[in-house]
């Protein structure tokens, strides 16, 4: 065993420093062992699904509170759903970090507009946002809609407006979006499926 002089002092000095002050009654706290409390004990558990890849892992979302009227559910933890036959409770680094996606500082909270030529965002109300967007859409649709093609065949299409639909959205969102887009005559729409 090789021990340098410095090492010897390190061992003695720091070691004794700690234990001897403890002996003298200056211990920082009563030295009782206590495991960190299990943080989910009475949290509400909701079954959901990871939104990332198409394994579509089952997840359990834990929110604070018991759904009582005055307790605002706040997501505190997300882990794998052991019942899901595909992921059986496991998650990859993306799924395991879902809490940080939900709580991302880059989540959007309010409607905003960036006016033409401006270098800034401006917060607006939902009413204003929807009104202004709908006005744009109607003006363009009324101006550009093609009821009949050059052969006189009814085609009822509006192809100066486009829409990229999200593959992260639910089936229900996708269906409703499709129904509304076709009703507008929209043909220039796509999703991530071909990217």
């Amino acid at each position: 065993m090789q021990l340098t002089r410095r090492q010897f002092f390190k061992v003695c000095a720091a070691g004794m420093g700690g234990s001897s002050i403890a002996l003298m009654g200056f211990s920082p706290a009563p030295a009782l062992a206590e495991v960190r409390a299990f943080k989910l004990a009475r949290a509400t558990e909701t079954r959901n699904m990871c939104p990332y890849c198409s394994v579509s892992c089952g997840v359990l979302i834990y929110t604070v509170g018991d759904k009582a009227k005055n307790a605002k559910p706040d997501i505190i933890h997300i882990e794998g759903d052991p019942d899901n036959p595909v992921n059986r409770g496991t998650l990859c680094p993306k799924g395991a970090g879902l809490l940080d996606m939900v709580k991302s500082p880059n989540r959007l909270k309010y409607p905003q507009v960036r006016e033409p030529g401006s270098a800034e965002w401006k917060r607006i109300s939902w009413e204003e946002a929807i009104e202004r967007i709908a006005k744009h859409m109607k003006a363009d649709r009324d101006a550009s809609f093609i009821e009949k093609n050059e052969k006189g065949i009814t085609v009822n299409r509006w192809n100066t407006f486009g829409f990229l639909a999200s593959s992260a959205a639910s089936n229900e969102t996708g269906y409703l979006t499709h129904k509304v887009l076709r009703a507008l005559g929209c043909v220039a729409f796509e999703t991530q499926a071909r990217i």
Partner: protein
Amino acid sequence: MTNHWVDIKNADLIIVMGGNAAEAHPCGFKWVVEAKKERKAKLVVCDPRFTRSAAVADFYAPLRPGSDIAFLGGVINYLLTHDKIHHEYVKHYTNASFLINPDYKFEEGLFSGYNPEKRSYDRTTWSYQLDKDGYVKVDETLSDPHCVFQLMKTHFSRYTPEMVAQVCGTPKEAFLKVCEWIAETAAPDKTMTILYALGWTEHSKGSQIIRTMAMIQLLLGNIGMAGGGVNALRGHANVQGITDMNLFGATLPGYLSAPTDADIDRKTYLEKRTPKALRPNQMNFPQNFPKWFTSLQKAFYGDHAKPENDFCYDWLPKIDGAYDTMAIFERMHQGKMTGFVCQGYNPLASIPNKRKVADALAKLKYLVIIDPLATDTSEFWKPHGEYNEVDPAKIQTEVFRLPCALFAEESGSFTNSGRVIQWHWKAADPPGEAKSDIEIIAALYLKLKAMYAKEGGVFPEALMGITWPYRIPHKPSPEELLMEINGKALADLTDPKDPTKVLVKAGEQLPNFAVLRDDGTTACGNWIYAGCWPQAGNLTARRDNSDPSGLGQTPNWGFAWPANRRIIYNRASCDPSGKPWDPSRAVIRWSGGRWGGNDVPDMRPDAAPEEGVGPFIMNPEGVARLFAPAMVDGPFPEHYEPFETPLDANPFHPNNPLAKSNPAARVYKGDMEVFGTAKDFPYVATTYRLVEHFHYWTKHARANAVVQPEQFVEIDEVLAKEKGIKNGDRVKIRSMRGQIKAVAVVTKRIRPLDVGGKKVHVIGLPTHWGFKGVVKPGYIVNTLTPYVGDANSHTPEFKAFLVNIEKA
């Protein structure tokens, strides 16, 4: 996926190629590990890079990006020349015996009917020989020179192991070892599965790469089997569902092709889409097309849709050309688009040639972003240092950014890659004023409807007339919508065999798609989802994970489309007499006058084996196509070089410049001009994902930023030495379209390849970075990529293009 995630555990051999399942789908990859642990299965990874999948593989073979067809064509040649095919399967379940038009030719790398000006084929000669009854002529001996089997044999005879090595840069011994392992699964009781993803789709011939593997699986008899199939590991959690809902201009929900200008009326439209059987006794399931389409019209237009007005056929817009993503951005770039909405989509980052995309967006009058996150696209107009150099004053696009909910903040269903539809429940409210996508779409719709009602406008009929039966009009519930998708009876539906027997009462939810009608008495928003919410309730919310067969089918967990079938084409898991090829993994069997077993049979339940009903019921042939006339770029796959290639010519057709790259791939004016050549850009680049990140989302999540914080590129040690680049140096990567900077990761996991005597270096470019996020800011990798895509699907060629590299 023809099969599903858990089924991977039933495989004897797993090929991961054109994908990197361990990184992109780790939780699905567990079933690969399970097969290895419990079945002693082998895992083979073929990839330009030694990936995390390769880290746990039994064998790894490298290949050059974009050479997959050469590799797989070589496998086909190996199987045919070594007679390692499943003869009975090939004879009975594929079109190997079908006779082809004698005018069909393949010469100098081009199939018959090529028009170089239009860069497209006239496919007339790629056709079957028909008899007087309209059935295809066959030669059961497979010896006729015009039969598919012989044509295929000839076509792939050029794909020798030497050619494979020369084109792919794969050492010949490595290629042959992969062939030997694959060939073992030609035995009826051995199966191989293939797991692929965007590594195959993102090529100018991506669809044909996948077809080549499908052909291999057919030759081996592995489709329909437990542990077999051709399995696309798809992208987003609900990309399968959104594909099923067909958020594409060219298709309607349930994969019904949308009307085009040529479909002048409903009759013309239906006739073109309702095929006749090409062989006797076949199910020819698409003959039901009118039922699917009419039921959709009833779901969309309700009481307005009547027989006398062609069920509002003219309310559907007709398509006059391509409207895929690249076509849309090309139109935008040409200034033909006024407004645009990005719902949970970040095209500035995810579409090739960022400069072109940014220029296109700047030509819009208005852009609407619906997203939970501050995406790069939403700030395409905003300067972000070297990562996004723009002048906002010059961009006149009005940009709206609408906050929406994330998965945790709404209920609804997602469909996984294995086609299992699963319900999820809302856990909390979205932050601030964010709303669900459904509410946002409803708000826009109701506002437009009110404006048209008040002010009038062009063609308001469809807009005013679509059904909107939701109890809270501005907040349709996901439950109401899934019920509409499933569909309901609008009148009592009686048994066609016994009109006194009512199968479904008016107003009831439909039990399945078999009861759909073409007379307007059923409404169904998506025929393939029929049965997911029958009268009994929401089957997608089922949570019984019992697995009586032990195959991992869990038939009472959620609902798999179609018809809760977990393995499609499962009729092919049995021999023609109805006995499972492998009784130890039986999926279904013919027993007691019915089909049944461990899955919902992909066959009419009472179709006796003697009737000879083929297992591929969605094809009018009843069998699978080794020869596929429907492909736009050839009935057989052929190797073509990527549009940017380090080679001077296609080694298979050195003397025909037309056959260098896919002759039928669409290239826009202006894009061809910015393809680079090997002289200036000598290295092959390929883009990909890393396990720590999901596309451009997780760069906004701290935990993911911690485990993979900063943009990097991967290069081999030889190239690094040549260029004086050390591990951790900053490097500059240029393509013909732009440049990025990143940290160099110098690695043994990428090797220079010997491609016909030429040393080819591959540079790996992980995608995940951009100028918004909590990771270290980075460049959008698609600054570099070429604007060209697959001839059939128009998926961009992200996986093989040319760059140069130097120390920054």
